[in-house]
């Protein structure tokens, strides 16, 4: 089976600094892989390279069958990223932001309400300009955006950051759902692997390279809600 993401000795230089210094990474379709490592290790850069936002300076990479050196435009719309920043338009309301993104991706507009409900973005909040929302609410909006779009590849950068316990539970449910539908999830996190019962593998990134890779002891099962709740509620230490 063609891997969803394949990086071979990927080198990525931003300015003079080699953010990635030779990353070897393979993620199969439908997998959930966690990237862990200290600050500045290059986790965000890996995600951005996979999104096609950062060009490769050296090595090779293929994402969803598209060569990262030649074919990046073909990736557009198939990859969704939840980055550090919410990437929303402050002057537009929640609904307007989501509707714009959904229409841009050509996804079904009817799913918007369900997604917003799921993330507990109720009636009045929906009509509020995003600029007036709290950081946590903006994160939820960004997540709702992804949920509605349902991309093939999900790239999540510290997804737990800014989300309260309830939202983390919902995130877990969402991840298991989309993976069951065939999506691939690659996420970067500071937290220990117990936070991610859904993960298939964990990769440690240090100094721009993958230094270790291990399978998670618990194989992926449809997680029970209270099991998730117990985990997410307690695991918030970096």
């Amino acid at each position, binding site marked *: 089976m063609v891997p969803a993401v394949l990086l071979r000795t990927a*080198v990525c*230089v*931003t*300015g*003079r*600094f*080699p953010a990635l*210094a*030779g990353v070897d990474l393979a993620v199969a379709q439908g997998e959930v892989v966690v990237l*862990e*490592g*200290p600050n500045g*290790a290059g986790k965000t850069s890996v995600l951005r390279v996979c999104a096609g936002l950062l*060009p490769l*300076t050296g090595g090779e990479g293929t994402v969803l069958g598209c060569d990262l050196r*030649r074919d990046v435009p073909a990736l557009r719309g198939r990859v969704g990223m939840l980055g550090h920043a919410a990437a929303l338009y402050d002057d537009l309301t929640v609904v307007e932001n989501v509707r714009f993104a959904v229409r841009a991706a050509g996804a079904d507009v009817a799913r918007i309400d369900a997604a917003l409900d799921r993330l507990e973005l109720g009636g009045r909040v929906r009509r509020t300009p995003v600029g007036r929302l709290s950081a946590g609410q903006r994160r939820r909006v960004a997540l709702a955006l992804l949920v509605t779009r349902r991309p093939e590849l999900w790239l999540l950068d510290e997804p737990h950051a800014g989300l309260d316990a309830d939202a983390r539970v919902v995130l877990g449910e969402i991840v298991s759902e989309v993976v069951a539908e065939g999506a691939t999830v690659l996420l970067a996190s500071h937290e*220990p*692997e117990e936070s991610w019962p859904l993960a298939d593998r964990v990769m*440690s990134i*240090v*100094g*721009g*390279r993958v*230094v*270790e890779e*291990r399978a998670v002891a618990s194989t992926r099962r449809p997680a029970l809600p209270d099991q998730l709740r117990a985990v997410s509620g307690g695991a918030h230490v970096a």
Partner: protein
Amino acid sequence: MSPTEPAVAPWSPATTWVVRSLGIAAAAALAATIWLGLWVTPPDEVQHNLVRLVYVHPPIAWVALYLAFGVAAVSSVLWLWPRTRSRFWDRLAASAVEVGVVFTALTLITGSIWGRPTWGLWWTWDARLTSTALLLVLLLGYLAVRRVPGDPDSRARRSAVVALVAAVDVPIVHFSVDWWHTLHQGATVLNANLSPTIHGSMAWTLLLGFVAFTLLFAWMLAIRYRVELLSEHLEDSELDVALHERWAEGTGSLPGEPGTALAHSGGPA
């Protein structure tokens, strides 16, 4: 190692030989042009000795407007076109623009020097001078964009777009200024065509002038290209150092991260 020899030879000895002969040929042709232009050919009846600028100004203008700018524009298009994309075109475009700036400025200066005694003005707003002046500004814009820090690919993209836009704009400017003069009733259209009647030895010298400056351009282009190549090599070697340091991050001592098992890979692979 002698100070004139580069530590890294950027290209083959054959190429070095070609470039060197180009330089020698250019120098010889220029010398011949100067000699013929200043001493051998007769002064014009009307313009007297000022006419000698005809051996210099039109050739320089030709190099600036068509040769340098043309090379820059075509190289940029070839870079933008995915099938022919290669860093060669990007380097060539940048070199052509830099050399082009020099020639464009010289075109304006020689044109101005020629014009002052002839028309009594340092400057006229005729189509050719105006387009040339604008071209200079556009080329400087290209160089400004090139200075913006970033990775080589982004830099090449931005520069190529600037070159392309400029290539499209210069003809438009030329036409519009031309119309400006022909449609403007009542204005004396200054005939910027300073060309005197050319005959005999003057024609040969003019031709030699074109050849000489073309050779000069080719040589300067090659030299500038080599500088570009060398600076890339330098960046690559700096990158190697940076990569080594980055790898050391992985194997050196780190603030203890409980739960993160570090494999000691023992240095760069």
